[in-house]
C-alpha cells in the first residue's frame, strides 16, 4: 500500500507553498529567528487561516494526512510550530468533549497549543471546591507564548486528565532554546486554580485521547522533518547550481553531487514513509503501529543528516546566520526530542514488526501445499 496524493491535495500543497513563501519570505524568517521568544508569526497564521488550515484538525471532515501536509509545508517555509501545535490540539479537543471553544479553534479565531508528553508535563491536579488546583509546570510548550489556549495532560486523582487552560498571563514564559525557528514556552502552574469546565476528559476517554495524540504527534513531527529536510536540501541544490569554483558550478563535481543525491534519496524515503503513516492512522490500517514508529525513526535519522549535508555543501556561508541552513540543523535536533526519539521508535519498530512480517516474507514451508 502506498500513498500518492490526489490532484486536489497536490493543488492544496502547491497553493500553501506559494502562500507561505509570500507571507513569510526567508529574510523575515531569518530576522525573526534572531528574536525567537518574542516574534510574531501573525502574517503566516493569517495566511494559514485564509487557506483553511485550522479546519484541518477537525475530526469530522479533516484527515490527519491533510493536516500533516500543511505541517510539511509550514516546515518547508521554516515557519514556527503553530500549524502543528494548533492542529494537534484541535484533534485532541475533538476527542474529548463538546468543548465550546472548538469552533473558535477551527475557524482560527483562537490559537491553541498542546503539551501532552509525559517528560514535559510535571503537572498534577486535585479537586478543590467546584474546581481544581494545579501543581507543577510544563517545560516545553510549542508556540505557547502565542497560543490563546493550551491543551495539556495532568495527573488527576484517578489517572490522566486533559485540561484546557486559558488566560494564563505571566505564567507563560518564553524559553530560550537551541531551536530559533520556533518559539517554546515554559508554563509554571503551581497553585493555579481552574474551574471544572477546564477538564475536557477524564478516565479512559482521557487516556485514549492522550495516547492517540502521542501517535499523531509523532506523525506530524515526521512531516515537519520531511518539510524541513526538503527545504534545506533544495536550498543546497540551488546553491550548488550557482556557486562556481575552479571555473565550474560546484554541483557539477561528483563529490558534491553525490552528497546531494544521497540526501535526496533519503528525503524521498522519509516522505514516502511519513505519508504512509498518516494514511495508516486515517484508515486505522493493520500495520499502523509499525508505520508510525518507522516514519518517526526515519525522520530522526534522516533530518539531522540532511541538514548537516546542506551545511557541508554550502561551505563557510552555511555556518553563518545569513542563510537558514542552521535553522534546520537545530530544528532537526529538537524534532528528535518531540514524540519520541529515533532510538525509541526503532525499539517500537522491532516490537511491532509482527504487523508486517507476513506480508513481507512468506514463512518457510509455505509452499508445502498444506501437507
Amino acid at each position: 500500500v502506498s500513498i500518492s496524493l490526489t490532484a486536489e491535495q497536490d493543488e492544496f500543497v502547491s497553493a500553501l507553498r506559494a502562500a507561505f513563501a509570500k507571507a513569510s519570505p526567508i529574510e523575515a524568517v531569518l530576522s525573526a529567528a534572531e528574536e525567537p521568544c518574542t516574534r510574531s508569526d501573525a502574517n503566516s497564521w493569517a495566511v494559514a487561516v485564509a487557506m483553511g488550515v485550522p479546519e484541518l484538525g477537525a475530526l469530522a471532515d479533516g484527515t490527519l494526512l491533510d493536516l500533516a501536509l500543511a505541517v510539511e509545508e509550514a516546515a518547508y517555509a521554516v515557519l514556527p510550530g503553530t500549524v502543528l501545535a494548533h492542529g494537534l490540539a484541535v484533534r485532541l479537543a475533538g476527542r474529548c468533549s463538546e468543548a465550546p471553544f472548538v469552533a473558535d479553534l477551527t475557524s482560527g479565531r483562537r490559537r491553541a497549543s498542546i503539551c501532552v508528553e509525559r517528560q514535559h508535563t510535571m503537572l498534577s491536579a486535585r479537586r478543590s471546591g467546584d474546581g481544581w488546583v494545579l501543581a507543577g509546570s510544563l517545560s516545553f510548550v510549542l508556540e505557547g507564548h502565542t497560543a490563546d489556549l493550551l491543551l495539556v495532560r495532568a495527573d488527576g486523582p484517578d489517572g490522566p486528565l486533559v485540561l484546557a487552560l486559558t488566560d494564563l498571563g505571566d505564567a507563560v514564559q518564553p524559553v530560550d532554546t537551541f531551536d530559533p525557528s520556533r518559539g517554546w514556552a515554559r508554563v509554571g502552574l503551581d497553585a493555579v486554580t481552574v474551574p471544572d469546565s477546564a477538564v475536557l476528559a477524564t478516565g479512559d476517554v482521557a487516556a485514549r485521547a492522550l495516547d492517540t495524540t502521542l501517535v499523531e504527534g509523532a506523525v506530524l513531527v515526521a512531516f515537519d522533518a520531511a518539510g524541513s529536510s526538503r527545504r534545506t536540501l533544495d536550498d543546497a541544490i540551488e546553491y550548488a547550481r550557482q556557486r562556481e569554483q575552479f571555473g565550474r558550478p560546484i554541483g557539477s563535481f561528483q563529490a558534491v553531487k553525490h552528497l546531494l543525491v544521497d540526501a535526496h534519496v533519503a528525503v524521498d524515503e522519509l516522505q514516502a514513509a511519513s505519508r504512509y503513516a498518516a494514511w495508516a492512522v486515517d484508515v486505522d490500517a493493520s500495520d499502523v503501529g509499525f508505520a508510525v514508529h518507522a516514519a518517526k525513526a526515519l525522520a530522526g535519522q534522516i533530518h539531522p543528516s540532511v541538514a548537516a549535508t546542506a551545511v557541508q555543501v554550502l561551505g563557510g556561508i552555511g555556518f553563518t546566520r545569513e542563510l537558514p541552513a542552521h535553522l534546520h540543523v537545530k530544528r532537526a535536533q529538537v524534532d528528535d526530542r518531540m514524540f519520541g526519539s529515533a532510538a525509541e521508535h526503532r525499539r517500537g519498530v522491532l516490537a511491532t514488526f509482527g504487523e508486517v512480517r507476513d506480508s513481507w516474507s512468506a514463512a518457510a514451508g509455505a509452499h508445502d501445499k498444506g501437507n
Partner: protein
Amino acid sequence: MTAPTLAPFAEPVVADLRAELRAWFVRELPTGWGTAAYNAPNDEDAELVFLRAWQRKLYDAGWAGITWPTEYGGRGASLLHQAVFVEERDRAKAPLDVGIVGTQMVGPMLIRHGSPEQKERYLRRILTGEDLWCQGFSEPGSGSDLASLRTRAVPAGDDGWLLSGQKVWTSRAHQADLMILLARTESVPGAPHRGISAFVVPMDTPGLTVRAIRQVNGSHDFCEVFLDDAFVPADAVVGDVGRGWTIAISTLSFERFATTRAFEMRNLVTELEGYLDGRAGDELARHICDAHAAGLSYQRMVARMAVRGEIGVDASVGKLFSTELGQRIVATAMATGGDDVVSAPVTTWRGGELSWSLEFVNSLKNTIAAGTSQIQRNIIGERVLGLPREEGPRS
C-alpha cells in the same frame, strides 16, 4: 479538505489481485520451495529447464507480460498490477524471470520502438520462455561510458550489415537465443551518442562466438561475445539507423526499474530478523525502516509512472537505494553471524532458500549491474536534481 486519499495499492481490486497471486504461488511453487527440503536441480542445464518451464507457467496463467498488450500475449494491465506481482513474487521468494533481459527490457523496448514485424516475431516468444535474450551493450573499453562503444556495423550491400567487435558482461549469452546489440554505424566526432544503432542478432549467427566467464558467485552466466563479420539482415535494425542511443536509454531505464530490489529487501530483512534472533536490534531496526521506505517509495514511483504512462529517471532512485540497502543488510548478517556464514561454498541455485554467503557476494554485484551506484547518482543528480554535468574528456 475532505478529499479522499488516493492509495492505489489499497484499492479493493489490488487486494483481490494480491490474494489471487498469493494463492497461485502457494499452488505452483514446488514442494519444499524456500527450504533445505527442496530438491533443487543439480546442474545449470537442469536449472534452465526448470526456469523455462516456470516462465511457461507464468505465461499460461497470464502473469508474464502483465503490462504488455494482449495481442502479444500480455495481460494488458497497468504498472500497478505489475508492481503487485513483483511484491508477491518476492514475498514468496519465487524465481526471477529466467529471461529478464527479454521480459523486462527488450520486450518493453520493442513494444515502444520495434517495427510491427519485429513485435510479431519476437514478443510472444519472450513471454512463453521459448526465446531467451541477452544484452550486447558493454564492451571491454566501454562500461559506464557506454557511448564510447567500438563494435562496428558495416553495410553489406543493401541486404544487411556485417558486425565486428567484442561485448562483455553479457549475462546468459551462452544460453540465449537472441541478442540486442549496440554497434556503431557511423562515427560522429565529438558526438559519441550519435551514429549508434541497435540490432537483433540471433546467437547462432555465423561469426558470433561466446565464451563464458567464471564469476565470484560461482556461476558462469556472465559471458564475452565475439563478433567477426557476423551478418545480420537489414530488418535486424530496431528503430532508425544511427538512433540506437534512444533504444539503449529506453532499454536501460526498463532495466533499472526491473532491478529495483525493494521487495526483495523486505524479504531479506525478515530473514535477517530470524537469523539475528535478538542480536543487533538497533541495526536491524534501521534496515527494517529502510526496507519499509524502499517498498513505499517504489510504490509511489509506480503510481507516478502509471499516471505518466512511462518509466522515468526516478527508477534510478529505487535501484540505487535498494541495492545499497542489500549490502547493509548482508553486512549485518556477516558481522554478527557465526562460522556458518562462511563454512559452506557459495552455490548459485538454491530454490528460494537463503544463503548469506551467496547474498553477500551477490550484493557486491547488484551495485554494479544495470549501471553502477555512481552512475545512478550522476543520473539522479543531473536529471532529477538538475545539477550540471561534470566536464571531462570524451572519447
